């Protein structure tokens, strides 16, 4: 049970955590934008459906959603949506993407709706098209407004990945529980804390850098 063995084991688990983290962001950041457009749609039935969906997802625990995604298709319908070696990971990813996309969609919506009407009107009277308005005028203002809430969510996501263990995804905590905690070895827990601190620290630096990059203007 050398330090190196533990490091290697935990790195494997942490690799799974990181992959879950990255893939969740890759899919949920754009999906969130689609959902936010849906919830802002002028076609009322669509906006109601989307908002109800967002309400359900944000109003129920992620842990429950993990259970539902992974177990319910098999329990109720006898179908194995997530079979095979990566089935659990895929199921976790699906639950995470849906959950985070809904959170991101609300952040986007707040950011977009928070842009003063005058910005759109100024763009209009200057003859800009809707697309030009979005990309030249609105986008960077939204980015600046949502940077702080997005960075909060992203850092929360780092730690939320550990929830995937409830459907037995071999992320770092699950690995630790099965390999070390099961033998009464506690110190890797603190080691894990270091992994997370370093990761979150890096993210904090990254978002700080972004904030600095955007500090040349104020919205």
């Amino acid at each position, binding site marked *: 049970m050398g330090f190196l063995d533990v490091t290697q084991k935990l790195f494997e688990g942490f690799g799974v955590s990181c992959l879950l983290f990255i893939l969740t962001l890759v899919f949920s950041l754009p999906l969130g934008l689609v959902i936010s457009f849906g919830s802002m749609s002028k076609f009322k039935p669509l906006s109601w459906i989307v908002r109800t969906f967002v309400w359900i997802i944000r109003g129920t625990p992620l842990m429950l959603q993990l259970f539902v995604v992974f177990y319910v298709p098999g329990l109720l319908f006898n179908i194995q949506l997530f079979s095979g070696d990566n089935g659990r990971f895929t199921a976790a990813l699906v639950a995470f993407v849906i959950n985070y996309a809904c959170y991101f969609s609300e952040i986007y919506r707040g950011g977009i709706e928070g842009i*003063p009407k*005058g*910005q759109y*009107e*100024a*763009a*209009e*009277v*200057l*003859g*800009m*098209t*809707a697309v*030009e308005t979005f990309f*030249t*005028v609105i986008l*960077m*203002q939204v980015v*600046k407004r949502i940077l702080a809430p997005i960075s909060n969510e992203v850092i929360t996501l780092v730690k939320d990945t550990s929830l995937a263990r409830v459907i037995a995804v071999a992320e770092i905590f699950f690995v630790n529980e099965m390999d070390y905690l099961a033998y009464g070895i506690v110190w890797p827990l603190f080691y894990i804390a270091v992994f997370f601190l370093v990761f979150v620290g890096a993210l904090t630096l990254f978002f700080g850098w972004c904030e600095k990059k955007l500090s*040349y*203007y*104020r*919205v």
Partner: protein
Amino acid sequence: MAFLEVTGLKKRFGNTSVLHGVDFTMEKGEVLAIIGSSGGGKTTLLRCLNFLEMANEGTIRMEGGFTFHAAKQYTPAEIREMRLKMGLVFQSFNLFPQYTALENVYIPMQLRAKEALRAEYPFGHARREAIGNAKVRNMAQAEKLLAEVGLADKMGNYPYQLSGGQQQRVAIARALAMQPDILCFDEPTSALDPALTGEVLRVIRSLKDAENGRTMIVVTHEMEFAAHVADKVIFMADGVIEEMGTPEEVFGNPKSEKCRAFLHGEKV
């Protein structure tokens, strides 16, 4: 035939009628001041002229420009084209915060130049070169316009680094850059400290005094400004034009009771 002819313009928001039928004309090079108490429909009229609101009834016709019939349907592209004949300076400036003063003036010009060049050159090197040339031209034009409003030394500043008066002058330069046939101002000094209104009004006045005097419509609370700069004054109340005439007529000898009461309150 007048340069701008507005006939029977009506606008409702839901069940509330805001303009009950507005008729007026103006000539090229004229400065028209619109005065009246808040809620009288001045701003709505201006927004209808810039197609930020769509009038429910009536026509707007600009000689050599466009004819807008409220009863007709227009595509967004058609509205954009008509809108570009008009310019609008807002009460709250509405500069784009992420761009410098120069970029605020230059970017909208360049976008339109690019659109025109994309139509002219389908693709390739020639188009890139033409767009590059347009950039140089438009940048120079933007610098010239900013210099004209007295901001030659503030071109690299972001809006938050400018005073309200300076921001409004950038907004005026930005509107001028689009070369509108008529430039509209919606209470351009209402959001400013009294100390800063002078610099903005001076700029507007200089536009009138320039060689080819600008055609302008100014919604304003500055009665003195209206009296001295405008060629024509309209007093609006409750969604209709109550009084219309030269400044001498409107301020000196108003026929309408409402106008007299209003001017008395404003202590001209």
